[in-house]
């Protein structure tokens, strides 16, 4: 356990940037970047709204758009029927506006070591629906409940293959929900189903709420940051991760663009 804690501290604080801002107590726990309200948490949100900065942006994609990879789900008619226009791999999804979907953008380093963030009481949910994971890429905080749902009602096993956290491999032969938590930060933890070899997902586990996943418009936002200098990483399943260093002052909002090439 201690080894994991050390590893996690090293991961997050690899490049500690001293931030002058004193950390004042925020009033009410407000929604975290992921959208989950941090209700009933014993720790108050440690960044004052008076200072909070924002980093927003989008993930652009240039070059030839990769051909969509069709998934053969004929072995599971129940799932195949849920995809009227056919099922496709979500490894690389380029949006109509030329942005890239399913990119996990997060604060890799730069947060003061003294800050502790409340664990959101609201669980995140990953569903197995139509023999695909929804969402395909998502984030969760250390200790936050991740509810694993099986809407398909047929056998899935959900297996986590972390290298820092402990793994798990759970069978869900009918519609049911199984809760799990991660004990240490780890970006990313692969999830997979062995019954359906095409099914995979990734969860980023962080000790803070500063993460965002690009959707259909390719944008992301990291809100309620303490002023400071941060290494922001954009992780994508298929392409190498990219980082940018961004400095934001109190109440400042900055927009950045990551560009992935085919």
């Amino acid at each position: 356990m201690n080894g994991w804690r050390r590893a996690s501290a090293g991961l997050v604080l690899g490049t500690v940037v001293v931030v002058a801002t004193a950390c004042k107590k925020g009033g009410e726990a407000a929604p975290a970047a992921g959208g989950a309200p941090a209700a009933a948490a014993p720790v108050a949100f440690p960044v004052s709204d008076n200072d909070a900065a924002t980093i927003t942006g989008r993930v652009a994609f240039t070059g030839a758009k990769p051909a969509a990879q069709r998934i053969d789900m004929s072995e599971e008619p129940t799932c195949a029927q849920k995809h009227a226009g056919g099922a496709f791999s979500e490894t690389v999804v380029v949006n109509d506006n030329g942005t890239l979907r399913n990119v996990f953008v997060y604060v890799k380093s730069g947060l003061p070591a003294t800050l502790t963030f409340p664990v959101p009481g609201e669980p995140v949910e990953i569903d197995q629906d139509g023999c695909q994971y929804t969402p395909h890429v998502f984030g969760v905080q250390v200790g936050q409940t991740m509810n694993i749902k099986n809407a398909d009602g047929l056998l899935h096993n959900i297996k986590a293959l972390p290298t820092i956290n402990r793994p798990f491999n759970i069978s869900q032969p009918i519609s049911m929900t199984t809760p799990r938590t991660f004990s240490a930060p780890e970006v990313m933890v692969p999830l997979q189903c062995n019954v359906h070899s095409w099914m995979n997902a990734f969860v980023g586990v962080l000790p803070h709420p500063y993460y965002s996943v690009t959707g259909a418009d390719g944008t992301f936002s990291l809100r309620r940051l303490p002023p400071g200098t941060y290494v922001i990483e954009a992780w994508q399943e298929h392409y190498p991760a990219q980082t940018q260093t961004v400095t934001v002052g109190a109440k400042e909002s900055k927009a950045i663009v990551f560009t992935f090439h085919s």
Partner: protein
Amino acid sequence: MPLRTRSAAAGLAGLVAATAVLVAFAAPRRQAAAPAAAAPDAAGRAVYQKWCAGCHGDQGKGDGPAAGHLLPKPRDFTRALYQVRTTATGELPTDADLRHVVDEGMGGTSMPAWKATLSSDERAAVERYVKSFSAAFATAPTALSFGSDPGGGQAAADSGRALFRKIQCFKCHGEAGRGDGRSAPTLKDDFGNPIRAADLTQNWMFNGGGSVEEIYHRLRSGLDGTPMPTFSDQIDAGVLTDGDLWRVAHYIRSLSPKDAPQIRDIVNAARIEGALPTGPNDSAWSRADRFYFPLVGQVIARPRWFAPTVNGVWVQALHDGRTLAIRVTWHDPSQSPDSLWRLWRGRMARAMSADDSTPADTASPLPDRVAIQFPTHLAEGMERPYFLMGSAEQPVYLWRWESEAGAATEVVGHGADHLEPLPPQDDSVTASGVYDHGEWRVQFVRKLATADSTGRLQFVPGRAIPMALFAWDGSNGESGTKMSVGSWVGIYLGEPARAGTYGWPLLAVLSTGGLGLLVVVRAQRTAGNSKQPSDTA
């Protein structure tokens, strides 16, 4: 604690593992890293380096010199990911779990049992040393709370059968449990290596032991690092009860024979008076004796093959004095060539070390094959041709069936790399095969005597005839010398029940018994006579 039945079959599998280790050690070996200044357990380290490092690696990373030849791969102790546990998924094994695996080995893998080789102190020391490879062991794991077996015998197994369907074990393990489920060709372990769904009809090969209790434990704990998940969460969710999982375990146990098959040296081909079976599914075969022969990977001639699919065959034989019928039955999860298994061969080729210069063929479709080998003629002495398809001096005669053609051919072997097909004749061997849920049944038929005896063995009842078996799984990339092999055994064609055979011994028994009786009766009468007068007087 129930001990797994150790069969000779498992022993032979261990032999291949040992071969892999020997092969690996024959190669130049890199030096062990210098021992840490304050070694936590010098005794454990010494045992580990001597007995374990060959497969598990000097640093415990599962990368020992033999690892490239093994599948499943040796455990990487630095990852602290263990299959056989009594703890929840993702938890570490207890000390008792580790001891159990070290003591008993792991069925169906290259991990042998150590309790006869190492002292209790040595085993304890090496277990401590293995744990030192991962910091995760700083926190002692706790075993799951297991319910007790509600028993129930056949009724429990029947109920378990319905549950087996409900929780969809068949998706990987197949409808008949032979490891041929729809998902089987895609399965991989946590390191990306291909892995097979267990053949649930061969409990002596189960990684974690084949008893009802051990099967129940695996259902509760899962086999971490493999696709086999835990079913404990269903109990928490109220979907299944603890008793349900016991019933599934009873059902799975019922799929295997009561005892692991015992290996015998000779197939008895009984002589029958009626008609011989007409095909591999003829119900007459269910009344004929079954003889089990373990097969192992061919690791002598190159290209070698350390990860064969077929680990044993059952042989049955009958004859009517003119014709011999032999049925060979074996388990193979694919009916090759099977498009669903198309990618498996490439994955196998990547997982196994290329120890020979022959590039792995992963493209052309390959059929399944089985071959029965005999000498070309019966010799007077005990000498037999070289078991691996003969030699130039002493050739062998082979019946070779393949799945794509659905027919057999006759071949004379002058060595594994020199096979010469015999020209088809009216009385050449014929064969037909059926594939049924992960099982091949192939029936060979040939006249005992053939018109042209050049290269063709003429079968004679009443004496043991050398016989050997080979099998290939095309979906596993097996062809040529990449195959499963068995050693020479024998087949004995029974002789008809004639008075000459059974009459004289019977007469001898009767006459001896009769004479004995006569002596006794006479003696009694004599004794009785001496008393009678006084009694009746």
